[in-house]
């Protein structure tokens, strides 16, 4: 039960600005995921919230109270570290009860609380073992248990699943989602894996080079990326980005010139788009499909069959690559020259310097979200 508010939070190392002013309000019981490329400052931001890293500018409010100068153990937050950071010489039970022991809680009460957390995490049989004799997934659960036992206002996770294998990661992802339901707690979760972000988050915070790029629900980010960075980061395989020029903009539709003779007509219009201005067209792989004729032409270079769907990587005349994701049985062969059509109502449009241009029209994202 907690709200967290960041007002212009900054982190300056000696000669490096790691966080360049972040504004964010996390509401009670929300599951917020920080996502971004390596080195963008996700961990730094999380550690500043935890109190492990000094905040060099701006304010952090926990439940409306300024917490910049409150030491980490009194912020009422619990953190799960990437390396788990379990105490190797203590048993699972001692690990989970350590915080309570430090707080001077009576032994019987510690045992009850540890037992309760162990039940939630299915660790009852392991309580007497040391971390060295646990599997990666079990260690992860102990680390989470250590956080649960403290009954914190909010949970902070720093890439907690990155040391697990793919199957276990999926399982733990589901388990964390279940925990979020069960504990009814505010959670902030750091990851560089956009799939984790998409599947778990109520809201995703996309960070890049110490700045917020966009904050929103997973589908909002997927369908309406605020800029090319978010468009490229969210979704796999990546959104196709095609350079184009505005050929004509009239009421209700925008005509684009693709430079190789092809053209696309997008529904909707934006007043600022003068003919001739350069733009970037963003197309999700699943909005493209093969057709006898279409605006995009290319040669099939790589085919990946994933079972339920297939990915086709095409090389266009200019050398650009485009990815098509399709579930239909298409029999395009390697080296074959093919044409693509696009569901234009799903296309995104960006200015040359990367900002999204919102064409006024009905948006499918709104309907879904």
């Amino acid at each position, binding site marked *: 039960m907690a709200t967290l508010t960041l007002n212009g939070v900054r982190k300056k190392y000696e000669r490096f600005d790691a966080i360049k002013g972040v504004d964010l309000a996390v509401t009670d019981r929300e599951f917020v995921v920080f996502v971004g490329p390596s080195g963008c400052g996700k961990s730094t931001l999380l550690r500043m919230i*935890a*109190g*492990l890293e000094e905040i060099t500018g701006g304010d952090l409010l926990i439940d409306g109270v300024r917490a910049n100068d409150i*030491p*980490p*153990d*009194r912020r009422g*937050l*619990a*953190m799960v*570290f*990437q*390396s788990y*950071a*379990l*105490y*190797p*010489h*203590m048993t699972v039970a001692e690990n989970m009860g*350590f*915080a309570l022991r*430090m*707080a001077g809680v009576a032994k019987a009460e510690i045992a009850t609380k540890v037992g309760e957390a162990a039940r939630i995490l299915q660790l009852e049989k392991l309580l007497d073992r*040391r971390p*060295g004799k646990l599997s990666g997934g079990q260690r992860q659960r102990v680390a989470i248990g*250590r956080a649960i036992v*403290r009954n914190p206002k909010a949970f902070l996770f720093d890439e907690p699943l990155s040391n697990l294998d793919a199957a276990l990661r999926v399982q733990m992802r589901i388990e964390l989602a279940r925990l979020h339901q069960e504990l009814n707690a505010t959670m902030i979760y750091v990851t560089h894996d956009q799939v984790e972000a998409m599947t778990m988050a109520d809201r995703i915070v996309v960070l890049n080079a110490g700045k917020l790029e966009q904050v929103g629900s997973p589908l909002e980010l997927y369908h309406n990326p605020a800029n090319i960075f978010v468009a490229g980061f969210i979704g796999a395989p990546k959104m196709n980005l095609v350079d184009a020029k505005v050929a004509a903009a009239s009421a209700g539709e925008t005509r684009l010139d693709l430079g190789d003779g092809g053209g696309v007509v997008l529904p909707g219009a934006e007043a600022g788009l003068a003919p001739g201005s350069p733009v970037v067209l963003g197309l999700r792989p699943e909005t493209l499909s093969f057709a006898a004729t279409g605006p995009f032409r290319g040669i099939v270079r790589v085919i990946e069959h994933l079972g339920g769907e297939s990915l086709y990587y095409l090389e266009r005349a200019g050398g650009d690559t485009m990815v098509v994701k399709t579930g239909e049985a298409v029999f395009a062969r390697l080296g074959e020259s093919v044409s693509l059509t696009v569901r234009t109502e799903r296309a995104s449009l960006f200015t040359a310097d990367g900002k999204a241009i919102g064409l006024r029209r009905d948006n499918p994202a709104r309907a879904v979200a």
Partner: protein
Amino acid sequence: MSQATTAAPGAAARGRAGRGRKVNTFPLLAPSVAALLVWMIVPLVLTLWYSLQRYNLLYPERRGFVGLQNYVYILSDSTLQTAILNTIVLTGAVLLLSVVFGTLLAVLLNQEFWGQNLARVLVIAPFFVMPPVAALIWKTMMMNPIQGVIAWVTQSLGLGAISWFQNWPMLSIIIIVAWQWIPFATLILLTAMQSLDHEQMEAARMDGAGAISRFRYVVIPHLSRPITIVIMMETIFLLSVFAEILVTTSGGPGHATTTLTYLIYIRALLSFNIGGASAAGVIAIVLANIVAVFLMRIVAGTLERR
């Protein structure tokens, strides 16, 4: 010594297992076995042999087999008991000091502060000073009651000078030897500190552990293994401390600082009694092995607890 005796059967067992691969391991093993024989077994056997002889260099003509007479003579000599006690006091005290100060210095030097690297080098430097030199420095520059630094400090505080080697002979030796071995403990424990996962410390901070609790519940358990290593290594060397005693007190006053090693030296080289010295040497080997067995137990215990 105990290492030599355990290494040989180990090697033999490996040789037997290797037969399945049809590799003749003897030529590969032979050099090390030969070296072991030459370096360990031959001196040991010679020492045993001499310890059963009447053999005094002052009376070379009176030589012959005397059975256990040398042992009887030494074991009934009250100096031996004093020497054993002194050895235990010296070793124990230096171990205690080097573990306590080594741990504290390691934790301090692991903090970030200005001039950290220089401080590390300075703290570790005494380890590289040869024992006789170290003893001389302490004898003439530090503990000398007339021109020593310590006397100068105590006198300027109006406390008068202490004649260290006269009044506190064992304490003086302990201080000198500890000065040399604390750096070793610091070095080992500092590297151990650097391998302490700092996320573990941060987790403890978030769990509400203050500096002292973190030291008690995270640092000390983490250091327990390297501390046993320090104890084992230092014991091996401390049992044979010699130069520091020779240079400063020569085992005196009386036998106040005569350790087992020094007793052997007195017997062998001051009284030219090779037989007696060899017997004392054999007794020292037996005692060292008893200590080694206990140490191995402790080490094995701490290793298993992980």
